[in-house]
């Protein structure tokens, strides 16, 4: 891997050249070196993409630029001058605006209030100016926002627009976007790409973090790859121009993982589907509400060895379906049958005991308990069960050993199993939750966005495991917003829109045609034959 580091490098950077320079920056956290002696230059007029596996230190780097953290070693330079960014205010004053990996809006405030947040308390909000400037943004970037809506009631995509709008309103010189596309639909991501292009054309610098390598290639002018806190390599504009997408991705993968990515990711899994119906759902309905989607007439079947994909734009009832299946959400009408047992009124624990598993997509909110050590989190769903408990008494050694095994097996980056799980990077938390669900004797597993936030290598490993589960004769429901993932894994794909099933399609490996049909259904078009009544 040392050989790789010699490719097209402009290290050490020339401090005079960029808007921001990072000079031998290092940042420690208890038990980890998050950023290790990194030097980078951010140039005006460029989209600078940061890539790296989970926990590579990308968000930490962003944190330092945003004034949330200061480097333990090394220094930052602004326009060639050594500078300190000791607080978010300092960072904002330096013209750096950041859209963080996790939403940084106040959900109970209106959009307008979120846009002006940070203004002095004694001032009266100046609405006219903001409206005028929003008008300009709408012209230039097609950003349009309902100013008086309560932020928390808007979709995630709209919320992300608010953050971007806020960054633009500030007249920044540098805009940072940390995994801004992870919650967006493919079209949304494209729009964002176009916006970034406009921004750099007007002379700004953009730092863009993503796990999607093709996005990196298409949107980025310069790509830097982080690996375990170190800068593993960089592809400059000249070099990128000479590479095709596939070549570029190959090189990035080399930098990130030091090996080939191993075959096209869209390759289809060998099916293992049988005739035995494991899960039978008939006419399932749930109550909707102001901010939750209700489910209507959901009927579906999952057979042993089958992977049933569920596609749809985020927020169209997929999560509610998963919760209703897991027993976490009350069912208004309909029936759920698990291997010929009606479980409609069974609670979460009972369903779990009968072999129904559910991997949530809300890893911090409900998947884990941030303050608890990793060890406790690995057995959170088996409290009281042997071998970790005997007659209700905890056996700490067993639990710790189990946690260590899981950490090793899933390559979780953590000092040890006593670390509070909340301190891990998003991707590493996901690995632990995945491991937890695959433990024991599952019959049907519901995966909700299992690979969201994971790096390429882990995505691959996780997909492999999901395939293995199906191959072992279990039933799998795979909810995903990533069509590639569904097309690679699923036997059939259900498309949800507005809390209903819009259609069920066999995954015939139909490539672009299938993709197009799914896309239409996602947008609310009914399938001609209305197959699933």
């Amino acid at each position, binding site marked *: 891997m040392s050989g790789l580091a010699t490719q097209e490098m402009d290290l050490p950077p020339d401090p005079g050249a960029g808007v921001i320079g990072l000079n031998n920056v290092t940042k*420690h*956290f*208890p038990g980890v070196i998050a950023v290790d002696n990194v030097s980078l230059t951010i140039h005006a007029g460029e989209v600078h993409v940061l890539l790296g596996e989970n926990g590579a230190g990308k968000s930490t780097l962003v944190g330092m630029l945003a004034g949330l953290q200061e480097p333990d070693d090394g220094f930052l330079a602004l326009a060639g001058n050594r500078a300190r960014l000791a607080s978010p205010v300092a960072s904002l004053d330096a013209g750096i605006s950041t859209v963080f990996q996790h939403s940084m809006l106040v959900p109970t405030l209106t959009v307008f209030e979120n846009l002006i947040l940070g203004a002095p308390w004694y001032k009266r909000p100046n609405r006219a100016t903001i409206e005028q400037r929003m008008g300009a943004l709408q012209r230039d970037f097609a950003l349009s926002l309902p100013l008086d809506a309560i932020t928390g009631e808007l979709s995630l995509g709209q919320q992300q627009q608010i953050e971007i709008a806020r960054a633009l309103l500030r007249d920044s010189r540098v805009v940072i976007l940390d995994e801004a596309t992870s919650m967006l639909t493919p079209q949304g991501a494209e729009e964002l790409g176009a916006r970034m292009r406009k921004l750099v054309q007007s002379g700004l610098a953009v730092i863009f973090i993503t796990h999607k390598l093709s996005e990196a290639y298409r949107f980025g002018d310069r790509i830097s790859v982080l690996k375990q806190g170190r800068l593993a390599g960089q592809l400059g504009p000249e070099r990128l121009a000479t590479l095709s997408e596939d070549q570029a991705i190959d090189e990035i993968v080399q930098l990130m993982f030091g090996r080939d990515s191993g075959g096209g990711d869209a390759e289809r899994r060998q099916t293992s589907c049988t005739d035995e119906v494991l899960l039978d759902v008939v006419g399932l309905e749930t109550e909707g509400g102001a901010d939750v989607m209700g489910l209507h007439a959901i009927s579906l079947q999952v057979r042993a060895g089958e992977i049933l994909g569920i596609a749809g734009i985020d927020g169209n009832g997929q999560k509610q379906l998963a919760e209703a299946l*897991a*027993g*976490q959400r009350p069912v208004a009408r309909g029936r759920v049958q698990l291997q010929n047992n009606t479980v409609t009124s069974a*609670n*979460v*624990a*009972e*369903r*779990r005991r009968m072999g129904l598993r*559910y991997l*949530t997509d*809300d890893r911090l*909110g*409900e*998947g*884990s*308990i*941030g*303050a*608890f*050590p990793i060890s*406790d989190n690995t057995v*959170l*769903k088996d*409290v*009281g069960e042997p071998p970790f*408990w005997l007659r*209700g*008494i*905890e056996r700490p050694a067993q639990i710790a050993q189990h946690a260590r095994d899981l950490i090793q097996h899933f390559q979780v980056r953590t000092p040890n199993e*006593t670390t*509070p799980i909340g301190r891990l990077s998003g991707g590493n938390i996901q690995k632990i939750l995945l491991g937890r669900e695959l433990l024991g004797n599952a019959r049907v597993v519901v995966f909700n966005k299992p690979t969201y936030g994971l790096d390429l290598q882990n995505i691959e490993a996780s997909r492999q495991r999901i395939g293995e589960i199906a191959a072992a004769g279990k039933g799998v429901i795979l909810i995903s917003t990533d069509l590639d993932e569904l097309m690679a894994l699923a036997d059939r794909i259900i498309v949800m829109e507005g809390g209903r099933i819009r259609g069920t399609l066999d995954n015939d490996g139909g490539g672009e045609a299938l993709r197009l049909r799914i896309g239409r259904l996602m947008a609310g078009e009914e399938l001609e034959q209305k197959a699933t009544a």
Partner: protein
Amino acid sequence: MSMADDIETSETASVQVAVMRRRPALRVAMLTLGPILAAFVLSAVILMLVGVDPLKYYSYILQRGLFSGLGLEQTATRMAPLLFLCASLIIAFRAGIWNLGTDGQFLLGAVIAAATAPLLVGVLPGWLVLLVGFVLAALVGALWSILPALLRAYHGVNEIITTLMMSFLGVLFASVLVKLVFLDPATTVPQTRTLPVADRLPRLFDTSISSGLIWGLIAVIAVHLMMTRTAFGLRLRMVGANPHAAAHAGLSVPLLTMAVFALSAGFAGLAGASEILGVAGNVRADWNPAYGLMVIPLVFLARFHGIAAIILVFFYSAMLIGSESAARRLGVPQDFTLVLVASLLICLGLGEYIDHRMRQKEQ
């Protein structure tokens, strides 16, 4: 740092203790003794400001509360209700429930014990009288928490406000009960019937120490083990730390929340019974020792740890007993112990912060 953790979770506390164990003994001693010393110095300054010789005062407290046989007996007796309250609060706080209503639960437990036990003497064997008193007190205490419990479990209403309200209400209700319902017709003073000395909790050996002490110790240790070593305890802690995660893991959050309230308030009721059946023998109208709020800082300083709580309760009781004596000899009102506890809390908090900072620097 344990005192810095948020309102929802108390988890870091135990992690913290584990971390502490791994640090050199000298440092731990410094970090504990330093703030304690500072607190005593701070309080001494206050004493000097009002013209009292602090050395004399402190040595007096030690002598009266700790180093005299009689004082030690009184200290031990005073511990019993405080220990039950510690048990009550350890359950609640570790499960993320801020039960600030222990005073009301305590008093109503006391009143029911005082109302029933004297009537049962002679009807039931002595031990059964006491048992009935304790059981009823636990039930009544738990009953008094049922509204906050339901509101929190099923409506998500913050329990700080509801338990506080129920506490105010309970204190008044206890006095109504004493004045109007359980009045001893034989006395002119409004109070309940009195449980004869011979029928109270037996004393230990040849001393005046009430055996309530033993039961209190058992309660705290049992609760500590339950919360840290059992599946049930972990479930309660899960509910406290992240109810969404608990529900996701298949726990019935509402039921477990109800259980926390019932257990915590039940122990508060037992505290009341231990005071009545062990020491006081009856409840007078408008009696309210207000131990509940007082124990909160102690439990917190103990970082929700049972053994540490016992040690702190011991020293606090000694201080109470000693200061009663000092009040008489040196003319310092007993309320001064409150100043001492507050200074301790502040100094230990600052100490923890400094420790936290030092460890951050080291890394």
